């Protein structure tokens, strides 16, 4: 049934592509001059800049729909109070793909060909981004700061117009490896991972990061997203009596794994859960009492953490979200994420040598320790020759009481493990 739906969507796309083949670059913009001559100026003028984002506003992943709310709040604030980005008013068009790759392709085409956007500012999810990046790169449209942690956005050489933002899964794995090396240097580790690109990316990065150390993986179990339950896997892992449990799961299975760990009183490993499943909404159903001491990692400020109660950026953020996105709850971390990534776009655009698509492409690949106030102190944006990963530093956190508590120093995985290459 699903196959035929995708087939129909594909047919439709082919049909649309065949009818809509007009070449329209440069129509909406102003001609670039000087050193920028000959570069693409679609979607940007002296007074405005048009961006398009694709998110799952409906369907199973619709919780991520709060991200564009945070972005919109930031752009509205900048437009109203700061005169826009470099004097240009930002227009941010949001489209819904329901987390379905064929729809993401359709929306990307609409944004690029009909709305004539300057750039795709965020597509969400590895599947949707993978489905669209061939198209954006053929059309030479920047696809910046995509909201997914797959490492291929940075290691792939054939898609220079696409770049990620958040720490990739390999960097995250390195953070856990670094922590274990220091805290439990000879630990035996059991791993549960989702059997897809995401799970394999993180597990592969972890295995590489513990090469040559005393750390060993003694048990490994995978699950499919279609599995009703991961209890059998958890039981097999418990049999290994490992001291550390690395939990590489998406939210629903994260809750199940945490609950299974709680139920099994005979096995009490140090439970490390990946950032994807570290949301409060995952831990709460299991019961806060049951997840004390679980470890994860983060890179931006948690709006619920009292540490940032008087933080200037956090105060500004909460105030502006109330003002420009009434009805939205600033305590939802996805909104904070949106704010931080929009701020990053602002700085990258400011740093661009040319107000063109080429200028943006080059700028996001040449960020030199750009501070973003919503990121954790010590975490900055940094890219350059051979490094297309803006954020590669994270800090560990442990669950205490009703919230995550940061501990230790920010771990810069570039410094500890060297550059990440494909």
């Amino acid at each position, binding site marked *: *049934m699903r196959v035929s739906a995708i087939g129909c969507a594909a047919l439709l796309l082919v049909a649309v592509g065949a009818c809509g083949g007009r070449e329209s670059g440069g129509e909406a913009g102003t001609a670039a001059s000087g050193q920028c001559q000959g570069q693409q100026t679609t979607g940007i003028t002296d007074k405005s800049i048009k961006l398009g984002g694709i998110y799952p506003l*409906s*369907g*199973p*992943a*619709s*919780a991520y729909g709060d991200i564009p709310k945070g972005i919109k709040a930031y752009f509205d604030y900048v437009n109203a109070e700061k005169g826009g980005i470099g004097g240009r008013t930002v227009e941010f068009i949001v489209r819904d793909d329901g987390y379905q790759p064929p729809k993401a392709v359709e929306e990307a085409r609409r944004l690029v060909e009909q709305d004539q956007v300057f750039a795709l500012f965020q597509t969400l999810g590895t599947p949707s981004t993978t489905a669209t990046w061939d198209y954006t790169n053929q059309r030479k449209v920047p696809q910046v700061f995509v909201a997914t942690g797959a490492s291929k956005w940075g290691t792939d050489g054939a898609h220079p117009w696409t770049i990620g933002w958040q720490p990739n899964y390999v960097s995250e794995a390195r953070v856990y490896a670094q922590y274990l090396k220091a805290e439990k240097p000879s630990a035996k580790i059991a791993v549960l991972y989702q*059997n897809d690109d995401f799970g394999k990316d993180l597990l592969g990065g972890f295995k590489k990061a513990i090469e040559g150390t005393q750390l060993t993986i003694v048990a490994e*179990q*995978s*699950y*499919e997203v*279609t*599995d*009703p*339950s991961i*209890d*059998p*896997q958890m*039981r*097999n892992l418990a*049999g290994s009596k490992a001291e550390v449990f690395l939990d590489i799961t998406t*939210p*629903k299975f994260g*809750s*199940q794994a945490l*609950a299974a760990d709680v*139920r099994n009183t005979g096995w009490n490993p140090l439970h490390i859960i990946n950032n994807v499943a570290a949301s409060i*909404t*995952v831990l*709460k*159903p*299991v*019961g806060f009492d049951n997840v004390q001491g679980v470890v994860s990692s983060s890179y931006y400020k948690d709006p619920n953490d009292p540490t940032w109660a008087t933080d200037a950026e956090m105060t500004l953020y909460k105030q502006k979200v109330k003002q420009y996105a009434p009805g939205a709850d600033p305590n939802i971390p996805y909104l904070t994420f949106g704010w931080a990534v929009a701020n990053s776009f602002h700085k990258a655009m400011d740093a661009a040598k040319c107000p063109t698509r080429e200028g943006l492409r080059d700028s996001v690949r040449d960020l030199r320790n750009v501070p973003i106030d919503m990121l954790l102190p010590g975490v900055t944006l940094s890219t350059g020759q051979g490094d297309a990963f803006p954020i590669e530093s994270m800090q560990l956190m442990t669950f205490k009481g009703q919230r995550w508590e940061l501990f230790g120093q920010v771990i810069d995985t570039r410094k500890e493990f060297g550059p990440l290459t494909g």
Partner: protein
Amino acid sequence: MAGFLQQVVEGLGAGAVYASLALALVLIYQFTGIVNFAQGELAMFSAYVAWQAMAAGLPFWAALALTLAVSFAGGMLIERIVIRLVEGAPELTLVIVTVGLFIFVNAAAGWIWTFLIKDFPNPFPRGALEVGGVSVGFSTLGVLGVVALVMGLLYLLFQHTKIGLGMRAVAANPDSARLVGIRVGRTLALGWGLAATVGAVSGVLVAPLLFLEPNMMGGVLIYAFAAATLGGFDSPAGAVAGGVIVGVAETLAGAYVPAVGSDLKIGVPLAIILGVLLVRPRGLFGRAVVERA
């Protein structure tokens, strides 16, 4: 040995979950002669109803009673306003309608309650019974007990009541049933209502184990189909036996056949369905369909 027995017990626990939904599938097949793809989603929706009732402050058992009543009414209502329109259409049409219902109910639950996971209280006590080095969770025992009870009730309904007789007649031949004075429409509606009620029991049993979210029953439905096919679509005892066999086979294959492992576990029910259909199409406990020429 204890390790092996433990795996078998875990398989029984998983199998009881599959059996609970398989019972609802068998029930609706008995009543209406169709395979209802939306059964799992209806069960999920019922679990949400129970969750909502408890969130409003009702104690568990009151919420359960309310849920069963709502599910029964909801099932009958669906038959009246959706299925009645295509009554008498070819089986394929009916199956497609249930697939549509599947998608609609899933989306509706997401729309009403969002896709965020919710916790659901477990009616059975925590902890486990230790017998000879094997631990059997109280919740596993509880699920098995409830499934056995529902199975018994269904058996009585099918074999020893007039309603059961009437509904078997409707499923076998609606035209003849109508001629002998059976209210076909009412029987079909009753079938949908009862199946939704049994499904609600399944949803409430599954929700504490898997966490409540709109896609909770998707995976369970596949295994429940395997269970019902294996046991025979017209036998409650067969559905339970089928569920248990599928659960145990899947768990043991995952644990002891390295080539299967966790990756291919989902292939086990498929292999079972194929094997049964080849060797004994009516299922282990099913009756062969005989038609007079």
